[in-house]
């Protein structure tokens, strides 16, 4: 779990999201998903070293947020696909439930922390019986053979299995937001106007698609592209915005590797 976040208190994506939402709690009517997404991506960007599994989690949450956001921005006349609608609601509810859980257990943890601090003020007596009882003490090593001891040693000194599982599956993520930025920038610039569907054509990995979406969002934020979606859940079109100065030509790339 080697990662550092600019605010080191965030252990995971829920915690970060929770913080970002509750920070705006002062006036709940001011809570804005856009601000939250921006802040969220900002935090993710500032992570110095990022664990791959964790990166996946952060990105999946980001993707869900963006999905909610896109849905919110769209006019509510047309009802679209009911299934997709329900699925989105389901995802939102799931996220909400997780955030509530996260908040609950954070509060419990702080109570635990108080209990531990209090318990730390007392030290237990552990000296045991004095030596006059030594002969009576049952032998802890009853039934322990030299062979069992050897096995215990081998167990203790053996190389530990790597903690990260399914690495091969998420591995392509490592540099892909940065790479995706380069790739999509090139593609959009050439085409001038391109659908998101075409930008992710041939990519089957959900994470890769999320990463490309993030890349486009980044370009949108930088004012390099415009986004257009004619109907809800319809094609998203990405339109290149030509600039006068070439000084910003070099796209600022988020490097998730740190």
């Amino acid at each position, binding site marked *: 779990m080697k990662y550092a976040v600019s605010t080191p208190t965030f252990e995971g994506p829920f915690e970060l999201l929770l913080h970002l939402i509750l920070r705006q709690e002062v006036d709940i009517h001011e*809570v804005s*998903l856009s601000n939250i997404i921006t802040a969220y991506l900002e935090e993710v960007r500032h992570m110095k070293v990022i664990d791959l599994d964790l990166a996946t989690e952060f990105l999946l949450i980001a993707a869900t947020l963006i999905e909610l956001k896109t849905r919110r921005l769209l006019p*509510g006349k047309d009802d679209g696909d009911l299934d997709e609608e329900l699925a989105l609601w389901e995802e939102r509810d799931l996220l909400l439930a997780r955030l509530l859980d996260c908040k609950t257990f954070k509060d419990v943890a702080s109570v*635990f922390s108080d209990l531990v601090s209090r318990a730390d003020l*007392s030290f237990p*007596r552990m000296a045991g019986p004095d030596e006059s009882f030594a002969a009576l003490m049952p032998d802890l090593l009853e039934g322990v053979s030299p062979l069992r001891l050897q096995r215990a040693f081998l167990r203790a000194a053996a190389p530990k299995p790597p*903690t990260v599982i399914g690495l091969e599956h998420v591995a392509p993520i490592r540099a892909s937001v940065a790479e995706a930025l380069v790739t999509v920038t090139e593609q959009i610039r050439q085409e001038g106007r391109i659908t998101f569907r075409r930008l992710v054509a041939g990519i089957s990995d959900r994470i890769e698609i999320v990463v490309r979406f993030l890349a486009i969002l980044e370009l949108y934020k930088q004012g390099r592209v415009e986004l257009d979606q004619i109907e809800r859940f319809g094609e998203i079109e990405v339109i290149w915005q030509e600039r006068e100065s070439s000084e910003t030509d070099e796209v600022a790339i988020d490097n998730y590797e740190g």
Partner: protein
Amino acid sequence: MQNEIFDESTGQNISGQEMSNLDPEIVRALEAILLVAMEPVAPALLAQLLEIPMTTVEALCERLAATYEDAGHGFQLVKVAGGFRFQSHPELAAYVERFVLDGQQARVSSAALETLAIIAYKQPLSRSQIAAIRGVDPEAVIRTLQNRGYITEVDRDDGPGQAVMFGTTPLFLERLGIASIDNLPSIADFVPDASVVEALERGLRVVSDDPLVPET
């Protein structure tokens, strides 16, 4: 077992009576045993060793604890992790800390505390259930907690994967200085209040920002 025979109040009365008839040696024996114990001693074991009812053990220990406190001793008798033990009085922590130096308890990180919180209230539960709540791969934290002896494999899931199920240990109770898992505050006390729920709901609302559209 005792509870079947005595209810709480009667039990206490009876042991009050019993105590006055008690051989003073029993009280001394109780002190002697507790002094040599290396971990909290369960009342059932004390009852067996001293050949007195468990309710009497509990009442005696409580009385002893009060006596020590009243006399202003530097040690105390407490019930922790289901048993009784001697420990230094928290008010003397500053002196004892100077003395034990390297016997100090390792700090518990906030990640570890949060994972412990989840396990304590939802046990038994599996790695993936923990991961789902934490939103982070809990493997490293689980291993630390297991190594420290705060959690243990308590079961295996019946399902196809036969996932390992984790639960808390008596050592966890000791670390928190509580007698039993039942002494933890109810999880209901921790459910976020309405304003938090509302803030979260608003933060994640799906419907358009258009004020004309009613929100749910």
